[in-house]
């Protein structure tokens, strides 16, 4: 798996800045807009969820579309490792790249809020946590985009169906977040695991 992770990270790490920039913009704009208080996190959750979903979709496409060409697929799969290993290698590298693009800016923002301190602004670094949880749910878009690329479905609607599941994961997670954090996490993880199992059987 190490070889596949190495290949994927070397191949796609150059796109990371393109993921980091929109997340940073969302965080900075939110910081500037809510100058006095940083605890109204609903808007931030939605914005981070939206941008993180976009990053996950793009990353999923980048990691699966080029390797769908028959010759590329053959070069990737015809070697002394199982297709399972290739899949988990792609998933792990995809999550690592996604984490750098999404979680590093969120962590940096939390660190910045802690550094500035409540004397400057009545904000708590924990305000970033819901956005980070939504971002975990948004990774389901990575799995969905891989399924969209790899599934052999003729109808566009059928082909895009995994996207619906990923969208549902994010919306349910968002909707429940402010009332029951535990349930929100459970919903996100359930859909993530379900999509992973389906993706493994298809890809």
């Amino acid at each position, binding site marked *: 798996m190490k070889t596949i992770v190495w*290949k994927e990270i070397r191949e796609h790490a150059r796109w990371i800045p393109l993921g980091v920039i929109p997340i940073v913009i969302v965080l900075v704009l939110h910081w500037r807009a809510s100058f006095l208080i940083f605890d109204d996190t609903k808007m931030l959750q939605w914005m981070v969820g939206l941008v993180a979903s976009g990053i996950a979709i793009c990353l999923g496409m980048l990691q699966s579309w080029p390797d769908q060409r028959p010759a590329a697929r053959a070069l990737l799969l015809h070697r002394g490792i199982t297709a399972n290993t290739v899949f988990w290698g792609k998933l792990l590298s995809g999550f690592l790249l996604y984490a750098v693009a999404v979680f590093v800016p969120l962590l940096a923002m939390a660190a910045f809020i802690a550094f500035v301190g409540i004397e400057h602004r009545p904000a708590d670094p924990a305000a970033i946590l819901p956005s980070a949880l939504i971002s975990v749910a948004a990774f389901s878009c990575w799995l969905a985009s891989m399924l969209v690329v790899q599934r052999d479905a003729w109808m566009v609607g059928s082909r895009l169906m995994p996207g619906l599941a990923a969208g549902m994961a994010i919306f349910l997670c968002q909707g429940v977040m402010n009332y029951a954090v535990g349930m929100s996490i459970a919903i996100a993880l359930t859909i993530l695991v379900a999509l992973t199992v389906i993706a493994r059987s298809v890809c």
Partner: protein
Amino acid sequence: MMRADNIAIRTSGLTRYFGHKAALRGLTLDIPRGQVTALVGHNGAGKTTLIRMLLGLLPPTRGRSELLGHDSQSLTPEVRTRVGYLAEGHFLWGWMRVRDTARLQRETFPRWDQPLFDAMLKFFGVTPDARVRQISRGQRAGVSLAMTLATDPELLILDDPSMGLDPVARRALVEGLLAFARRDDRTILICTHLLDDVERLADRIAIISNGQLLVDAGLAEFRERVGGWTIDADFGAQQAAQIPGLVDSRQLRERTHLVVADPDQETVAAIQRISGTARREELTLKDAVLAYLRPSAMVGSISAALENVR
């Protein structure tokens, strides 16, 4: 009938449809170990589809295939490391350096032969630091070939390996493959359009057209079993129906060239009845193969058609 342990590749009733179009229809073929088999056919005949199914990269619609005695659809990593595959177009990831491609192979093929890889790079004039996207097409072909041969495979499947190679590199490739085939009785399945290479390399030939296997024979046997005649008479569908085993008829000016499979006394008599001055002609391997590959719709010849236009 060959013994099962003497067969490197076996297909039985292998069929693949893409939508309503059949790319391969009920292909049954045994490729013996220790021989070089050339797979010949025009573009779209189903050669690459066959290879992709053999390697388990594409599921068949019907039928099954085996590689080294293992079902193609469930090849284990251990079996895969015993099979070298060079894909059509010599695909390599363009962002990689040549040494990165070697690393990717080395870590997933336990019998990786680094000195062989280095020697082949040197031959094709490629440095390990070169980026794949910056080397020439011929050099890329060389790197692809080096990557495949350095895995030290028992069975080598090559999909149009000469594509993009200049004549010097092509000759080196053929010589390299011959040397490779002689080492420990390796098996090679080579899919090519270059019939000169087939003549120099192959022990056997399999001709595929429109997804169907037309010929599966030893090269010498194939040459012996295909005969050519030249006749000076008019030749149409009615005459064609009289000749048993007629593979192809081609008109060049006033003469018609006939290619017949398995000619016997009855065939010779039928040809003599059409034209008493019919002459037997020596067929090259190229003539014989092209006769099989000419689509049935191409009656006559292009030159005759052009003369008719004039």
